[in-house]
């Protein structure tokens, strides 16, 4: 066929096809069509990923599922034991059961709200694939529902995973029958939709209000906002009332106050009021609260849709405009970085400097420090107001037992911080990692640069936590030193493990560190880390108990007692060194073989 003939034919077929193809108005498609279509890339990607898993990867997935089940079993055990204990406490039992349920829902609600705000920033405005969809003739309303569904799933799945065993424990302990479970299943969807709708609305509004000041300001605001929210909700629960009934005029007033919802406008209160009467501990009006929850969820989603459909285009445009050039600032502290990195070898120094510079220029990273600061303040504050008074014996034991719990908690807090900052550090190199991988820099040097960059700030944080809180507790000097040294030693494997697991689960495509940390690898890291912390604390608990008893009874420790103590501390040292060395070796080997 000649060229003009081909052109003519193309023109003819194109014209006909164009007419036929584009007769249909995009709005004519039903909502379900768009929902299915817009979510299909993600579903297909998940399916393809699963299909392409090698046998080894499937085994790892299976192991991961088993770990998840194990962790779920842990959550279940905790709730099962706590609730059974509450049942055995006369008068107070139902109060504690009610408070625990309230705390579960308040915690879920606050985490879900924050999680939805952060997730929706990505799903609605920053995700790379959005350009393609926004450029296509997709009605905004349908885009909203597809993205909203993604936001809900991304923000809530992990929460559901932990909630299920907790609710199961409630059902079993109180022998509720199927009605409780069915009610729980019916309660959770509207309960999840409310923070999602609020989160998306807040994000959309922020993106519209702060156009020129880039995502940085939005994230900063989110961080500050979450601090306020966290603190407020924490105070709303008033946990100290659980241990201080004397503060009330009389016992009856205390019980009445404890059983009455304090903040009736919170969806977490409604959810508690729906489920609590189902446990058979007191009457209530679950139908009324369910109607309130359901109608609020519907109004929230519809309101959110209205906000998004009206302001998405403007917000989207402004989010694009936000990606403008920014002159790099060189504050004094950046020069101080040189002093900080002076002891390192030249290659490690270069890498550490780069780590620090990129961290403090990435708002999504450093803004988290504000949140962290608030958490530390709340954490230490709680110890300052702990009502530990009573007989000298009780006070002595309580203080030192709490000091032990405090050690585990401080280790857990630093491990969580490591999960957020150290675990993603290799993934955050992103596709730019080729520059380091192709340079004559060994995997060992890369590893140690990341290790020291993570360890030093965590050591400072951890030691501040443990020393400040133990000072408030006025624990014995021995316990003071033991906790401080144990945490210091534990932080080496905690950081090394974070790096090693982070390398084993690289995610070079993620848009932010939070997304990397919330992946499967993050979960594996937290589970491993918590097992390690629990093992160390348990191994140290016995010798400390023996030594305290001996000191308190003024009976010297026998030789076998000393041997037992030495064995326990030896086991802690052995475990710590093993976890550290294994993490370092496996991490460096994985880094060497990491494909970019």
């Amino acid at each position, binding site marked *: 066929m000649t060229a003009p003939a081909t052109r003519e034919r193309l023109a003819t*077929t194109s014209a006909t096809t164009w007419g036929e193809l584009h007769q249909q108005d995009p709005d004519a498609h039903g909502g379900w069509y768009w929902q299915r279509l817009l979510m299909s890339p993600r579903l297909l990607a998940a399916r393809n990923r699963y299909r392409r898993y090698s046998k080894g990867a499937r085994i790892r997935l299976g192991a991961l599922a088993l770990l998840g089940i194990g962790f779920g079993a842990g959550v279940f055990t905790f709730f099962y034991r706590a609730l059974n204990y509450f049942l055995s406490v006369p008068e107070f039992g139902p109060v504690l059961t009610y408070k625990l349920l309230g705390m579960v829902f308040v915690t879920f609600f606050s985490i879900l709200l924050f999680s939805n705000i952060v997730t929706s920033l990505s799903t609605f405005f920053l995700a790379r694939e959005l350009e393609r969809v926004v450029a296509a003739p997709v009605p905004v309303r349908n885009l909203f529902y597809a993205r909203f569904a993604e936001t809900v799933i991304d923000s809530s799945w992990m929460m559901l995973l932990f909630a299920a065993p907790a609710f199961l424990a409630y059902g079993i302990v109180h022998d509720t029958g199927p009605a409780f479970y069915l009610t729980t299943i019916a309660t959770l969807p509207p309960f999840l939709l409310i923070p999602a709708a609020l989160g998306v609305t807040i994000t959309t509004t922020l993106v519209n209000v702060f156009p020129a000041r880039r995502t940085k300001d939005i994230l900063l605001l989110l961080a500050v906002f979450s601090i306020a929210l966290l603190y407020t909700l924490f105070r709303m629960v008033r946990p100290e009332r659980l241990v201080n009934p004397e503060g009330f005029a009389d016992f009856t007033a205390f019980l009445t106050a404890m059983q009455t919802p304090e903040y009736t406008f919170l969806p977490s209160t409604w959810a508690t009021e729906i489920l609590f009467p189902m446990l058979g501990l007191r009457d209530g009006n679950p139908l009324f609260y369910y109607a309130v929850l359901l109608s609020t969820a519907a109004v929230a989603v519809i309101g959110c849709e209205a906000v998004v459909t009206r302001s998405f285009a403007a917000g989207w445009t402004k989010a694009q405009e936000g990606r*403008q050039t920014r002159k790099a600032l060189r504050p004094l502290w950046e020069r101080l970085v040189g002093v900080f990195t002076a002891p390192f070898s030249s290659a490690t120094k270069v890498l550490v400097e*780069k780590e620090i510079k990129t961290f403090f220029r990435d708002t999504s990273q450093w803004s988290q420090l504000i949140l962290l600061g608030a958490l530390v303040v709340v954490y230490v504050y709680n110890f300052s107001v702990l009502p530990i008074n009573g007989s000298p014996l009780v006070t002595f034991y309580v203080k030192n037992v709490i000091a032990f719990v405090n050690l585990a908690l401080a280790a857990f807090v630093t491990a969580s911080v490591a999960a957020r900052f150290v675990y993603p550090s290799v993934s955050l190199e992103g596709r730019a990692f080729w520059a380091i991988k*192709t340079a004559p820099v*060994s995997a060992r040097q890369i590893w140690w640069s990341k290790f020291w960059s993570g360890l030093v700030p965590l050591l400072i944080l951890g030691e501040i936590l443990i020393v400040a809180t133990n000072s408030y507790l006025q624990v014995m000097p021995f316990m003071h030193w033991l906790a401080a040294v144990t945490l210091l030693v534990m932080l080496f494997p905690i950081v090394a493990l974070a790096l090693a697991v982070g390398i084993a689960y690289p995610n070079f495509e993620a848009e932010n560190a939070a997304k990397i940390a919330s992946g499967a690898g993050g979960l594996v890291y937290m589970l491993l880390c918590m097992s390690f912390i629990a093992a160390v604390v348990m191994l140290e608990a016995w010798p400390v108990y023996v030594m305290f008893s001996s000191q308190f009874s003024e009976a010297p420790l026998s030789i076998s007692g000393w041997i037992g103590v030495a064995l326990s501390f030896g086991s802690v040292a052995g475990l710590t060194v093993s976890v550290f060395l294994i993490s370092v070796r496996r991490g460096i080997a994985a880094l060497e073989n990491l494909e970019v």
Partner: protein
Amino acid sequence: MIELIELTKRYANTLAVDELSLSVPSGEIFGFLGPNGAGKTTTIRMMMGLLQPTSGRVLLGGADLATDPLTAKAMCGFVPDRPHVYDKLTGAEYLDFAAQLYSLPDGVRHSRRDRFLQLFDLAAWGDELVEGYSHGMKQRLVMASALMHEPQLLIVDEPTVGMDPRGARLLKRIFRETAGRGATVFMSTHSLEVAEELCDRVGIILHGKLIALGTVEELRAQANHTTDSSLEAVFLRLTGGEEDEPAHEALFA
């Protein structure tokens, strides 16, 4: 300078590179051609240690990449097909960083950084964060970073994609000068004009196998083409691309 010995890369169900053996001497500009998905980028990424080969060896300047990676890497400058760089560094900082990875002395590093920013038209942007750079600017920055330590071997993946004519002309000049000082340039490209104009020898890869190797004239002979035919015609004949032409007819049918 480059020895690839039966280099193979297998992904789950795909053989991306199939026992590829190739030798490139010092001072040569070597063009690595092939259609999309033929295995060019996979080969290059294995040569730079970014991917682990399933089997086979890579020797760069006599150093085995598997057993002596630091010596091998110290000789190379690499420019990937997509210019991913650290967005939160400035252009000048990025060049500094790249040079320090190769342990360049401070004085040399600073003077080269300033000279390269000038040469690659980035001087006005040197103190701006890379996140504000255009695609072409990032490409020029990556090229500059690859040259900072004066590599003996420059490995470049698709150098001219997204470059404006001025940038492309600068690249050609750099490649010639690099080869002129005795270094080797190994580049994969889709631009047959660039390959024809610059390369001393060309290798064509298809389905992971090297199907043709030699000067442009030698390839013409292999493809049974007359001496005046272009490299494009030779390329299409060797890779089976001529058969695709009727496909245009099917378009929109």
